[in-house]
C-alpha cells in the first residue's frame, strides 16, 4: 500500500460492537445489583468480587489476549471496543465530578459574589466616550521610552 492507510477488516466493526456492548452489559449488571439489591455488597461480597473480576477480564485482559493470539480484524475490533468503553466510563466519571464542582464550587462563588456586589467581568459595558483601558504598568506614554 502506498499511503500507509491500514484497511479495516470485515470483522472489525463486529468485534468492536461485541466488545463494547458486552462490557456495557456487565457494567450495567453489576450496577443493577448494587443499586437495586439491598445489601448486595455485604451479603454477596464474593459474588461482587467475581462480577468485578469478570468485568476486568472481559474489559482489559481478554481483548488484549485475543489480539496477541489471533492478530486479525476481530481481535483489533474487540480491543478498540474495550478502549472506547473505558474512555466513555472515564468521561462519565469526569462529568459527574465536574458537575459537582460546578454547582457546589462555581455556584457558591457566584452566590457569594452577587451578595458582595462583586463583578469579575464587564459583560454589559456602560456607554463611555472611550472603551480603552490604560495598562497600569505602562505609565504615561511620553515617559515610556
Amino acid at each position, binding site marked *: 500500500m502506498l499511503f500507509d492507510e491500514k484497511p479495516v477488516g470485515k470483522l472489525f466493526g463486529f468485534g468492536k460492537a461485541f466488545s463494547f456492548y458486552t462490557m456495557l452489559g456487565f457494567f450495567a449488571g453489576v450496577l443493577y445489583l448494587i443499586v437495586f439489591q439491598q445489601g448486595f455488597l455485604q451479603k454477596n461480597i464474593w459474588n461482587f468480587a467475581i462480577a468485578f473480576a469478570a468485568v476486568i477480564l472481559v474489559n482489559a485482559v481478554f481483548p488484549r489476549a485475543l489480539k496477541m493470539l489471533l492478530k486479525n480484524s476481530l481481535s483489533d475490533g474487540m480491543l478498540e471496543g474495550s478502549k472506547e468503553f473505558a474512555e466513555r466510563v472515564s468521561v462519565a466519571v469526569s462529568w459527574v465530578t465536574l458537575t459537582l464542582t*460546578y454547582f457546589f464550587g*462555581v455556584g457558591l462563588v457566584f452566590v457569594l459574589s452577587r451578595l458582595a456586589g462583586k463583578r469579575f*467581568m464587564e*459583560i454589559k459595558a456602560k*456607554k463611555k*466616550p472611550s472603551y*480603552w*483601558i490604560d495598562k497600569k504598568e505602562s505609565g504615561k*506614554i511620553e515617559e*515610556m521610552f
Partner: protein
Amino acid sequence: MDILGIACYYHDSSACLVRDGKLIAAAQEERFSRKKHDSDFPKNAIEYCLKEGKTTIGKIEVVAFYEKPFLKFERLLYQFVETFPKSYFAFAKSLPPWLTERLLIKAVLGEMGFKGKICFLEHHLSHAASSFLVSPFKSAAIFTADGVGEWATTTLGKGYGNDVKIFKEINFPHSLGLLYSAVTAFLGFRVNSSEYKVMGLAPYGKPKYYDKMKKLVDIRPDGSFALDMDYFCYHYRMSMPSKKFIELFGKQRKSGEPIIQFHKDIAMSLQKVTEEAIFSALNYLHRITGEENLCMAGGVALNSVANGKILKKTPFKRIWIQPAASDAGGSIGAAYYVYNSTLGNRRNFVFDSASLGPGFSDAEIERVLKEKKIAYTKFGSGKELLKAAVGMLLKDGVIGWFQGRMEWGPRALGNRSILASPTKSKMKDILNLKVKHREYFRPFAPVICDSDVDSFFEADKPLPEPAYYMLMVWPIKKSRQKMVPAVTHVDGSGRLQVIRRNQNQLYYDLIKEFGKKTGVPILVNTSYNIRGEPIVCTPFDAYKCMMGTGIDALFAGNFLIKRKDNLRDEWDSEKKAEASGN
C-alpha cells in the same frame, strides 16, 4: 544563545528557534501532524527546529511561551462564575484539557529533557513583539487585535529599539476577532479557520446590514469598542451568535447550504464595520504616538482587504505585518521579546524571508521517489526545469511547485504552491474541479515580480513589505483585469504576492519566463494542499496530494513527477474530505 519559542493550546500551534538573535527555524505543528490548525503541544515542530539548529532540547537555555496560562485560566474561571449557570456545558468541556495539559507546560518540557528557564509572556505582548522586533523599523506604533489572549483582545502599543510596550487595551468579552468569528459561524463557516472565506465573500455583497451590524458593536471615534453581549453567547457556550442575534439577522446558515445574496450582504456589512473599527483605532494610535511606522499582529491583521487600505485611510507612511500574524506567530514574538527586551540584546535581525520550515535536498527527494517506486524525470539544469514548467503552464496545466524550505505562516509563497496560468477565466473552474473543490466565491491569488507590480496593480508606493507575504489586497488596473481573469476578484481586486529575485530565484525566473511567452508576468498561486488538510510539508506529502487531486505534474527540487506516469497511485482526496466533514 538558543531560545525556543512555543505557541500552543488555542489554535495554530508553532515553534521557532532563535539563535543569537537570528531566526534559524520556525514551523507550525499542523504541517507535521497533518491536522489543520492543530492546537496540540508542538512536539513535532520543536523536534524540527532543534534538528535544523543541530541542537537538542537539553542545550536550549530559555523557552519562551507565548502566553500566561494561569492568567488565561483565571479569566476562564471568572467567565464561568460570571455567567453561572449558563456556563455549565462550557465548563465541563473546557476544564479537563486545562487540568491535564494546558497548565502543565513546565512538566511537559521537563519530560522532553529541558533543563533551562521558561518565560511566560502575555499573549498580546507576544503578538506585538512578533511584529515589531523583526520589523525593519527602529520605532513604530503597534496595533494588535485577535479573538482573545488572557484578558486583552485588542491593544495599542509602541516599539522603540529593542523594547515593546503596550499602553492601552480592550478586554474580553469585547473583541473584534470574536465579532468576526461570530458572524463567520452565523454564515455557516468554521470559526478560527474560515474567517478569510467571509472576507472573500464580502465583495459580492452590499453593506445593507451595516446599521444592524452597528447594533452589535458600539465603536467610539478613538476606535475603542464594546460589543452588546446580548447578541453573543461565546462567553458562556461553545457556540457564538445568540438567539437575539438570529432574531435580528434571520436564520443561521448551516454548512453546505447554498449561499444567497443575504449572506453576501452580511459579509460585506461585517467587513465595513471591522474596517471602521480598525481605521478609527489606527488614526487614534497615530495621534497619540506620532509615529509614521505601523506594526500589526493578531488574527485581525490577516484581514488583507483592510490591510490594503490602511496607508490610504490613516496617516501612517509604512506598515509591517509578519506573515504568521495570528497565534502561530506568537512563538516568534515570545522568543524575540526574551532575547531583545528581557535580556536587553540589540536587534540584529529583520524578517526578510518566510522560508523557515523544512527543506529537502535533491538526494533526499530522489531517495523518496526510488523508495516508493515513483516514476520521475531528473533535469540537468534549472533552465530545463523552467522550460518544462512554463510549457505545462502554457497548455493550461496545473503544476505542483515544491522547492526549498516550507513557508512560515498560513500562505503558500512559492515553496509549497500550486501554480497555473491566470490568463483564462476557465482556470478558476479547472482549479476548482481538479484540485481545490472550494466555494465558487473564493478568489485565487496572483503572484507577480516586484518590477511588474505597478503596471498591473494600484499598489501603495513605496511597496509595503507585507505584500511579499500575500497580506495586502489592491485593485487590479482596469485595463489589465481582462488579461488576468483567473485572479481578478468580483470587485476587481487581487490578493497579490510580490516576489523579489533575492527571495526566491527559481520562482521569480519562472514567473518572468511565463511573462516573456504570454506578456502576462503573473501566475495563479494557491496553497499546495487538499481540502481539509494543511499545506504539504514533505516530498511524499506533495506526491500524495498530486495523486489525490487533478494536479498534472509536480516539480520537486530538480525532478519532474507526472501524474499520468503514476496512475497506479491514484486516489480520491474529495471522498476523504467529504467523509471527514471538510
